[in-house]
């Protein structure tokens, strides 16, 4: 406890906690939609693209690498969504190519152009998140705050439409809802969330942040609203627990958060089984 209070007195630790909670909250919101629309793969593909974009940004030595990562990832989301719809091109194979390609090019770029002495460490922290969250600047925290507020507002305002499009896209379309537009909206929000979450858990572990809360809550709760609320609470709790444990024991923060998610998922499975 003493250690924890001591840690909290540093502003960068406080920033990390604020950002961590925000990211965990946002990433859990669309989890249910993603899982049920069989769009989890888009999240996975996008995280690799984001890694590639990050590599480009660091090679170009931009002061704020979000400026490249965010638009590239959003663009990739739009492209992936179009691939997913088009059955003529094998959708999932195209996504696999795009994401693995981005990963490979990203690593290649970092290797060829990087001036850093500890290249393996840099790559590892981008992939698994470790240190970057503790080096956040005030401006990055504010950007994260703004993006989170936008994500939450969009989600609340379009909640009913997102529900309808997730549950029965054909019905929604036949009722006059512009489903293509909402699919696009969902993909863009996911892209934003992934870019945010890269700071916290790194690009390889992002999917966990999106999928675990939704899958766990779906086992216990019976309405869309309850599942959504539960996902948010689940995700924030695990992020906090993970960050605290990692501070106390010195484990990598991203992996610890995901481990908490996995353990809590197990707990929810048991609760779900008992309830039946």
């Amino acid at each position, binding site marked *: 406890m003493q250690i924890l209070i001591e840690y909290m007195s540093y502003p960068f630790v406080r920033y990390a906690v604020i950002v961590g909670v925000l990211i965990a909250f946002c990433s859990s919101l669309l989890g249910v939609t993603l899982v049920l629309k069989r769009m989890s793969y888009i999240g996975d593909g996008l995280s690799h693209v984001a890694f590639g974009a990050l590599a480009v940004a660091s090679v170009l030595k931009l002061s704020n690498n979000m400026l490249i990562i965010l638009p590239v990832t959003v663009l990739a989301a739009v492209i992936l969504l179009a691939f997913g719809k088009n059955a003529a091109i094998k959708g999932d194979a195209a996504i696999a190519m795009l994401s693995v390609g981005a990963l490979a090019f990203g690593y290649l770029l970092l290797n060829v152009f990087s001036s850093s002495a500890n290249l393996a460490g840099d790559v590892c922290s981008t992939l698994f998140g470790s240190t970057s969250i503790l080096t956040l600047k005030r401006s990055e925290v504010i950007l994260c705050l703004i993006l989170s507020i936008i994500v939450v507002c969009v989600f609340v305002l379009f909640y009913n439409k997102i529900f309808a499009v997730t549950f029965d896209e*054909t019905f929604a379309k036949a009722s006059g809802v512009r489903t293509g537009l909402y699919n696009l909206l969902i993909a863009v929000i996911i892209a934003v969330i992934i870019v945010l979450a890269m700071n916290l858990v790194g690009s390889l572990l992002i999917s966990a942040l999106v999928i675990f809360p939704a899958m766990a809550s779906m086992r216990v709760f019976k309405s869309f609203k309850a599942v959504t609320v539960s996902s948010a609470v689940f995700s924030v709790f695990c992020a906090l627990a993970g960050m605290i444990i990692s501070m106390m024991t010195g484990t990598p923060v991203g992996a610890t958060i995901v481990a908490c998610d996995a353990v809590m998922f197990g707990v929810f499975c048991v609760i779900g089984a008992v309830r039946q």
Partner: protein
Amino acid sequence: MSLISAKDLTIGFSDLVLYRDLSFEINEGDYVFVIGENGTGKTTLMRTLLGLRKPLKGEVVTDGLKLSEIGYLPQQTIVQRDFPASVKEIVLSGFVGRLGINPFYSAAQKKKALDAMKRFGVENLASRCYRELSGGQQQRVLLARTLCAATKVLLMDEPVAGLDPFVTEEFYGLVEKLNREGMTIIMISHDIAAAKKYASHILHIKNDPSFTEKKEYFASGKGNEFSIVREKGEA
């Protein structure tokens, strides 16, 4: 005046024409059964009538009928089978086409959704989870949702598939009552016995499709042949 009319429709996909030059007029209060073997393009026709896809040729004219007055009950998807949503949430989503720029449902819409649930006897299931219901209950929930969307026309795609005979009969009863109250019904079905009992018109989809009144259809060679094959197949 006809509610929905098809003019010289050619239906199919870019490399496969299913049938050509289909014309018919559906009037207010009609109860149309769309029958025909699997793969003859019944669902495709329905999607064309709804404007979800374009016909290869011809056009669908819906005189003064707004998209928000049509309710569509599609075939169930795999996604829905393990969907965590309460009955209330699903029925209420029938109004999604009328939200416009409003983010939330109005009190009046919530009241109507409750009425729809009562009408189909699912109001006591309101907070139950959709995936835990029986097939018949699920279909009644979806019908209640469709009723929230529809004020004039209901299009249903094999709504009784997978239901037991008792529940099927119950379902047809509910639909018939709606039809008597003035709702126009267009239903895809393989149930020739039900078509005989309930339909006012039969739209037979095959190589040469036809739209006829029920009596005329069952008196025709085609109707006879089809029902004999059906009844033999089911026996």
